[in-house]
């Protein structure tokens, strides 16, 4: 017998063994409210919102953790249940600052939603509120523990999914706070800035550090020449902020909105993604031919970079020296483009719209000043960008599709799939194969490296080189597994792609909330469909890329590339 039959509100449900009451209720289309529960991340029964009554058990039980048991009789809508659920929410609200109107998560807050759903319309319990710290030590993440409801999703995602464990519970009972150990700030510990905590936070306790005002200031300053660039994953998710279903591609509206906001040039990070492929592909071939450090590991995910610096500094020589695409573009704006247009790079402001919180940290790294200035001045998340569009009163849904500017806007399908896990690998294989063999690759869809499996592997036969063994990991927990395989020497890979966030950049820490496996898949599909629709689908075929090498960079891995497009890494401590 692998199934269990139980009754919920008198309705008999049959579920697989190992299911919870919540699973069973879902199957029976019976809604049980939840708050701390998050599929794929955690079920800990801590908030006591999903309480149900089970005949024969005196205390109410949390549906998210209580197993479904043969013959059990569950009731989800009794007076006892309604009272207890309301009590739990009332208690949480009694300790909440109630700054809803000014909160980043207003109208997209799970606490608001559940309070409304349970009919909590009065806060009867006054009294002392717990004193939470406000942690602004990180350039990426801001945490306001006064808003924290101690659901612990952030702790779990950081530990179980990302294997970073930067956050944990400190203190006990009423004084419990989510914090790094020893009450350090997030900016002072081995945090990768991936921002997954901000994605799973049900309330406004964890948000990206808000850089919108700095960008408004730049836009309002007539002496500044302000450039914007958008990452590939942004176009697959930005629409969600404006009511489009997940997986709606809004490239044209995104570009049009950027122009309406008053940016002087609208470039595209995808252009730099193509450039990355040329540089990184060349680096791979060089290492393979000259016996360099293998496997080569991608370096476009700054969360991943900080992770390897902290946890596997001994493996840093495996990293590609390529900067992440938006940093390449930033450096080129303030050199190549500034010279071409006769603009003083001092007066230039480069703003990157990214699905990412780690890039906020990345642009502050001292290595990222090869143009002689801060290569990228500000990084906005997809969420912040949407906020600016709304604030500017732009009617996003009715915008005419816009276009990018030249010379750094044109891109190929290879670049746009950077936003999904496996995309960089696929793009690199398309180019590296042709560079290595001099032959045209006919079947360019490397479907083996697509999708949401944690670690994906493929072996590609390349004429003249032999079998090229590759692996792709997304989510830092999976990255850790791959690093252990490399350390144990069992792997024998040539090339590895790693993205810090589950699903790759489509599931980035700066993306619209919520995110789950279904939404990650839909966003990725949007990118793959854009890839299919584009004229050029291999980075080395991008005419603008050819042009920048002719006009400025001269050759891949050349002197200028080395100075502007490549970087060095910093070994860091774990503690």
């Amino acid at each position, binding site marked *: 017998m692998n199934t269990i039959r139980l009754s919920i509100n008198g309705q008999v449900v049959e579920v697989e063994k190992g299911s919870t009451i919540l699973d069973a209720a879902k199957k029976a289309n019976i809604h049980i409210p939840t708050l701390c529960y998050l599929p794929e991340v955690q079920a*800990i*029964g*801590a*908030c*006591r919102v999903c*309480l149900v009554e089970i005949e024969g058990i005196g*205390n*109410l039980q*949390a549906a998210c*953790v*209580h*197993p479904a*048991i043969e013959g059990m009789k569950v009731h989800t809508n009794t007076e*006892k249940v309604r*009272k*207890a*659920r309301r*009590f*739990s929410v009332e*208690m*949480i609200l*009694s*300790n909440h600052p109630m700054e809803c109107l000014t909160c980043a998560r207003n109208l997209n807050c799970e606490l608001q939603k559940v309070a409304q759903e349970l009919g909590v319309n009065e806060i*009867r*319990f*006054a*009294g*002392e509120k*717990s004193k939470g710290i406000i942690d602004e030590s990180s350039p990426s993440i801001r945490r306001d523990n006064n808003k924290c*409801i*101690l659901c612990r999703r952030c702790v779990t995602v950081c530990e179980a999914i990302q294997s970073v464990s930067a956050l*944990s*519970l400190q*203190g*006990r*009972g*009423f*004084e*419990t706070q989510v914090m790094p150990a020893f009450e350090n700030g997030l900016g002072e510990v081995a945090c990768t800035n991936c921002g997954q905590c901000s994605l799973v936070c049900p309330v406004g306790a964890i948000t990206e550090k808000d850089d919108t005002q700095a960008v408004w200031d730049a836009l309002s300053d007539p002496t500044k020449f302000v450039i914007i660039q958008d990452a590939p994953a942004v176009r697959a998710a930005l629409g969600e902020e404006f009511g489009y279903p997940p997986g709606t591609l809004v490239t044209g509206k995104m570009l049009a909105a950027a122009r309406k906001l008053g940016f002087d040039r609208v470039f595209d990070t995808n252009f730099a993604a193509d450039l990355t492929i040329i540089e990184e592909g060349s680096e791979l071939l060089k290492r393979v031919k000259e016996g360099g450090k293998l496997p080569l590991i991608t370096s476009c995910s700054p969360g991943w970079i900080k992770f390897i610096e902290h946890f596997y500094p001994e493996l840093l020589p495996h990293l590609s020296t390529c900067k992440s695409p938006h940093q390449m573009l930033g450096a080129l704006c303030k050199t190549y483009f500034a010279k071409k247009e006769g603009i003083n790079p001092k007066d230039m402001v480069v703003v990157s719209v990214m699905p990412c919180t780690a890039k906020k940290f990345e642009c502050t790294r001292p290595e990222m000043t090869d143009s002689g200035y801060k290569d990228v001045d500000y990084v906005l998340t997809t969420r912040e960008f949407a906020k600016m569009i709304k604030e500017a009163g732009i009617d996003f849904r009715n915008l005419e599709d816009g276009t990018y500017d030249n010379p750094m806007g044109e891109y190929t399908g290879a670049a746009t799939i950077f936003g999904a896990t496996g995309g960089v690998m696929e793009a690199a294989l398309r180019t590296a194969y042709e560079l290595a063999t001099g032959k045209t690759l006919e079947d360019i869809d490397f479907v083996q490296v697509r999708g949401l499996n944690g670690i994906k592997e493929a072996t590609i036969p390349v004429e003249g080189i032999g079998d090229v063994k590759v692996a792709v990991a997304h989510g830092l927990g999976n990255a850790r597994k791959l690093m252990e395989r490399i350390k144990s020497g069992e792997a024998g890979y040539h090339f590895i792609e790693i993205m810090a966030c589950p699903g790759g950049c489509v599931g980035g820490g700066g993306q619209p909330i919520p995110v789950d496996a279904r939404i990650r898949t839909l966003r990725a599909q949007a990118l793959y469909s854009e890839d299919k629709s584009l004229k050029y689908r291999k980075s080395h075929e991008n005419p603008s890329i050819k042009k920048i090498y002719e006009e400025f960079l001269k050759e891949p891995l050349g002197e200028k590339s080395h100075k502007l497009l490549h970087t060095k890494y910093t070994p860091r401590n774990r503690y």
Partner: protein
Amino acid sequence: MNIVRNHILISIDAGTLMAGARAVEDALIKELTKYGLDKEVSVLETGSLGITGRGVVLVVYPEGIYYADVTIKDVPELVEEHLLKGRPLKRLILTEAPKRTIITKEKTGLLKEQPRIVLKNCGFINPENIDEYIAAGGYEAIAKALQTMTPEDVVNEVKESGLLGRGGAGFPTGLKWEFAIKTPGDEKFVICNADEGEPGTFKDRLILEGDPHKLLEGMLIAGYAIRATTGFVYIRGEYSLSIERIEKAISDARSYGLLGKNILESNFSFDIFVKKGAGAYVCGEETALIESLEGKRGHPRNKPPFPINAGLWGKPTLVNNVETLANVPEIIRNGAAWYKGYGTEKCSGTKVYTILGHVATPGLIETEMGTTLKDIIFEYGGGIREGKAFKGALIGGAAGAFIGPEMLDVKMDFINLREYAAALGSGAILVMNEDTDMVDMLKSVLHFFKHESCGHCAPCRLGTAKLVDIIDEIAALKGKKEDLERMVEITQAMKNASFCPLGQSVSLPVSSALKYFRDEFMARVS
């Protein structure tokens, strides 16, 4: 062989150590040597003599005279008078000294006689000497089990004895063992819960300090019964003497082949390890204890699965309290029928209590289940100090219930107290005299809960804080009548909604305080 005419047993427990027991012991030996009495009078260390809060306590045999509050300044006089001249030193004699019978059920008519099963050796043998434990019949029970009983026999014997878990909930021990033996698993664990955290409770500490081998033997029998291979004693980190003694006992038992491989040449192998807790009250809850034992933050786990199915590192795990396990060797040695001769019909055996508060002789006692509260307080505890009147008591620690004078005749056992919406709990009896402010008492209990709530679930983490807000207002005469109802509402909601027994049990002290002392609360609110 040397003839010894007097034995002085000095109580070495955490309390007497702080009062300078070792210095008194040294002074005694020195003084006896001075008179050349050191061959005739032997000074021996033992565990708690059952008397607390009275400084250094010792007993001189064969007279059986208890002395309390002994300091090194008293030693010359004590030795000269009692041991040289044979005249007991009246000014230090403890007149309320407890008496006890030792596992025989002699009826001498003296209520103060305690039938001792668990505390049989406490205050008699040197807890640091395994030979003394063996001489007192120790490790006979495990030998009997290994040589004459199957594990199922052992489980049946314990089941038959009617022993209820002494950790507080009173769950039938034999039944728990039966679940454990029936759970399949290649590796099972026995955990002794020695994380005694209920305020006012120190019985487990004194059992551990006074007779550590008894616990080890109980764990061995449990291990054999459920086919476990490893045992852990999870003990409060603050219990340094207990830790020292249990660790010495383990090492001595290992060297005697009583722990380790093929115990007493049987096929049974079992070893025991000590794990120190970090002082969280919630870690007395068995699943939080297991989390802590695994090295994690002390938060409770959801049940089911119960530890018996998936406990320590996911393996079947039996968790029993110190006192529960300390009953087991005597049950196996003397049989279930003998054990059932003690106590009440539904609740057999004895119970170890700690009596404290405004009683004349606070301390540790063991009496039969079913003894009335009146006898415990007025006979064993010597009544209320300074001739004051009895007002009430808090039974079973912070998670226990307040009772008033009308409850004095209630027979104390797990089953009976449930009928009165009270609980035997940990066996702590905090006695309060007529001057006690009950609002203040409840305030201190609620502050305790707020401090000790682990923070895992919202109703407990925040409910305990709200209760503190309210009781503080009432204590400061700023409360309203509705606040009393609100407290009840919060604790009732916490009882229904909280994750673990910590939050669920706050309703007991609140509702009982308001039941028995309502007038006092009403007088404080507007």
